[in-house]
């Protein structure tokens, strides 16, 4: 079956100041655990679950964000699908927890370039300066009308996860900021 994220990105969103790119297929889980089980679950699963809300663990092929109290979003490359499914099944068997696959719920974009933070700030109310939102910080937030998950992977590089149906809105919003920039 054709894997179809059904979104195109206009060339105007691709310049030296800001570039929006769509990531390919990802495997995603929303994981919830009881506070008392976190340490043991981390150990037995090998998942590097960040302890603090806003924390991330970014490794090759797998990013884990702590979005809320005992709530993690795991985003991995498709090659870890089986392994991750096994890990989740084992966690579910061993602990009181909730592991829900949400691979197809989101689309993932990267926003890069020296104008990335400014472009995101057109619609995201967070302070995205490096001091306030350093590399490695990630959070659930809003992008004007769209809920998003945002994390920073480099000074000029952000990753945005957005529910599928909100993606065109996010893209169009960023396109408007790019257009304004080109016009100003």
């Amino acid at each position, binding site marked *: 079956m*054709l894997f179809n994220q059904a979104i195109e990105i206009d060339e105007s969103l691709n310049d030296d100041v800001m570039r929006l790119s769509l990531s390919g297929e990802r495997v995603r889980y929303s994981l919830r655990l009881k506070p008392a089980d976190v340490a043991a679950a981390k150990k037995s699963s090998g998942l590097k679950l960040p302890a603090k809300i806003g924390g991330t663990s970014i490794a090759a092929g797998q990013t884990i964000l702590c979005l809320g109290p005992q709530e993690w979003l795991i985003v991995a490359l498709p090659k870890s699908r089986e392994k991750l499914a096994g890990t989740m099944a084992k966690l579910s068997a061993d602990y*009181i927890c909730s592991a*829900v696959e949400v*691979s197809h719920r989101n689309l993932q974009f990267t926003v890069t370039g020296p104008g990335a933070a400014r472009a995101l*700030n057109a619609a995201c*109310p967070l302070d995205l300066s490096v001091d306030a939102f350093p590399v490695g910080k990630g959070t659930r937030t809003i992008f004007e009308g769209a809920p998003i998950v945002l994390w920073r992977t480099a000074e000029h590089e952000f990753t945005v996860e957005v529910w599928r149906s*909100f993606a065109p809105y996010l893209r169009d919003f960023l396109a*408007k900021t790019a257009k304004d920039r080109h*016009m100003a």
Partner: protein
Amino acid sequence: MSAFRKPGRGAVNTAVSVNFTFDGKKYTGVKGDTLASALIANGVHLMGRSFKYHRPRGPVGAGSEEPNALVVVDRGTGRESVNLRATSVEIFDGMVARSQNSFPNLKFDIGAFNNTFSLFFPAGFYNKTFMWPKSFWDKVYEPFIRNMAGLGPAPTAVDPDSYASSYGHCEVLIVGGGPAGIAAALQAAKSGERVILVDERVKIGGSLIDAPNCEIDGKPAADWLAAAVKTLGKAANVTVMNRTTAIGYYHDNFVALNQRLTDHIANPKDGAPREETHRIRAGKVILAQGAIERPLVFNGNDVPGVMLAGAGQTFLNRYGVAVGHEVAVFTSHDSAYQAAFDLADANIRIPVIIDVRDDIRADLRAEAERRGIDIAAGQVVSKTSGKLRITGLEIYDPQSGAKRTVKCDALLMSGGWTPSLHLWSHSKGGIKWDADMAAYVPDVANENAVCAGACNGDFGIAAALTGGNKAAGGRKSYSVTERDFGTGVTLDSLPNYIKDTKQKAFVDFQNDVTEKDIKLAVREGFKSIEHVKRYTTNGMATDQGKTSNLNALQIASKAVDKPVEKVGLTTFRPPYTPTTFAALIGHCEGKLFDVKRVTPIDPWARERGAVYEPVGNWMRARYFPQEGEDMHAAVRRECVATRESLGIFDASTLGKIEVVGPDAAKFMNLIYSNPWSSLKVGGCRYGLMLNEAGFIYDDGVVGRMAEDRFHVTTTTGGAPRVFRHMEDYLQTEFTDLDVWLTSATEQWSVIALNGPNARKLIEPFVDGIDLSPESFGHMQVRTGKICGVETRLFRVSFSGELGFEINVPSHFGRAVWETLFEAGQPYDITPYGTETMHVLRAEKGFIIVGQDTDGTVTPHDAGLSWAVSKKKKDFVGRRSLKRSDLVAQGRKQLVGLLPEDDSVLLEEGAQIVADPNQALPMTMLGHVTSSYYSDALGRPIAMALVADGFNLNDQTLYVPMPGKTHAVKVTGTAFYDPKGERLNVV
């Protein structure tokens, strides 16, 4: 160069001419002029007509506080901006500006007959006069008042410009780029923290430009300013934003800034954003907004050419324009002398300074003498002459009774200064009355904010600089050589020999409120300033009373004989100055107005020419018209095809929530009215959700995927609130449960197949699920594969036909849909939209929450008592269901209606009565909630909420509709296949 231009003065570039038109007449100004300064340089003071009396008016101020000189700037279709203050509008080459509120022209305005009869237009005139006869209000009075009262024509064309909005953050936000703001910025810059300095004008400088005759740290003010601008420009951590107004100050130091980007440019790039709204979260806010000069309230104070002393000084020093050749001064405050001296030093004749005070400061007296300026101490202006421009004035000495006239072509007035508390008050900062200054000043802060300079009541350049520096944490004391700013007096009322009723002493210039209007309001019993304001409309114009509020307060306070602070102060509200709606909208117009959510299958439907309807934020295909079909025809075809063979429907928008945890069933029992413990894994159940009040809140089918896992579906529009409702209870009431909620709406694309051939179609594509009716019955769910991808396959039906809802991961949704659609051709598979879905479910009597319920319908009312557990000890809404009003007889209940005339389609929302011949107003029994033509039944059907409906079965009721009243028979709601046999087709 015109006679009023003063070469060598002002921060304008006289070498660059700027041509523009005002009311069709060509004028030339210079680069840096405002419309007001350019017109005054051309000898023109008359710029507008007042709101109520249509009196000729010229600028009173020189900045954004201007109440009078409101103009239209026309940049072409959709780009007409009205109610702009000529004192803030920067001119550009080719600008087209017009006066407003005048017909046929500014010099002869027909509406001015109001002025002639102004005796008959006192405060409250409209309220008193246009009361009778009542029928005249809509047709005569209101249109007349609206027509007369319009402040500028409302635009009708679409604004073609683009606007922007953004969020920003800083440690220190400084509002106002005068000496206080600049000193604060210089100090704050040293910390390395992010500093934003905003100023509404073209450049920062404030009074250092308007009144530059001082030395700071041994340097002329202009040099000091240039150095400061350079320093701030070089500091990487400082952002200076000109042409930017802080329009509102909200909770937690959240300040809205409106930046004007292109209005000053002759030919902006097409598509360049015109304005940007910056929403700034600041660690600390320093308000350095300055003060606004107060007019004196005297007879004839609104003739063009009468303006604030500080404005006259600004026109000279900032724009190099003399406001007249012979400029008289009328004051109750020392500061006006500075204006007089500045003008005199620019070779403008000052015939007289009239000062209401007897004692004049010796140094001012000496300086006036040195310049040969006559001072009339202890005297007042009793009237002015001139209609379209002041030509002279009468000086009256209340002690001797003597009167004399003086010729002039401009009159500067000063009634003292009012610190600008606007933003401070937005932030809920406290204020206190300063009797010496006769003004309110900041008291205790409510946010991390501080006021500096004149807005804090600290007048003069030295005080502003030192205050600004201190506000930013500095301890610097500036050494400034300046004339002492001085003090003034406030009089409740200026003495005059002319009777009150014969005077026209304006308080609020924009709304034409006079001193006697305020006194009248008090006489008529309005004691609070808030009431006086609303009765007289003082301070209610677009300038929010910037120049009038304090004067009105003084007059009212005297009239009620109470101290000012007991009379109250009206509320300051955002925006600080009038702001375009487009700026408030920012990016969020057109396709960014709101999120339009679409499903993975949407592009396919779009290609097939589907017609859409919005459901919540979703855009859903409503029907798929074929050539020549209207909605009615398309829906009939889709219904028939589905019942006869096979329909395919995109149900992806249904809300989905995964409820997981060992206490999942317990939670479901609490949040839904029906029982869940007995539901086996692999089973589905209709779930009914009530709110705390016992009314139907949402519904949907729920599948039990595992002992500890439920796949919950909700209505499309209800998904966000149902999720919140569940999470709310989980976090606040059922905190002991081990269960978690995850939104899975967009994880799954849902393809609904309905019709007798549904099973035949999917059989070849399904792996790992036995589809036979024996092992996979109605209301069951299985997991397996379809078309090679994972599926949660529900056997459910919202149509009454054999039905499946195929959940597949979203990114495969379209491909699976297309595969099934292709394979369905032998069955004439027919895509259908929400309208057909509505008809099919109505034929079965299935409700739609929000259509057949309205938030006041209980399960029993809707005929859903079966979905309320009798055994469960608790669930949300359970206790409310026992309330006496919810168990009372005669409640509105959901019934079916069959029109006797089967060619009639009842209107949804139509009222229902028992006897169409009863007297008006009739007793209405209820209303039609759903109404469709049913091909399956060969007749129209309807559902309705009717009082005591369950006891009216088979009775005839009546539905009055436009043109005719229709008889209807009351029935049950299960119109079609009431036994449900069609579900079991093999």
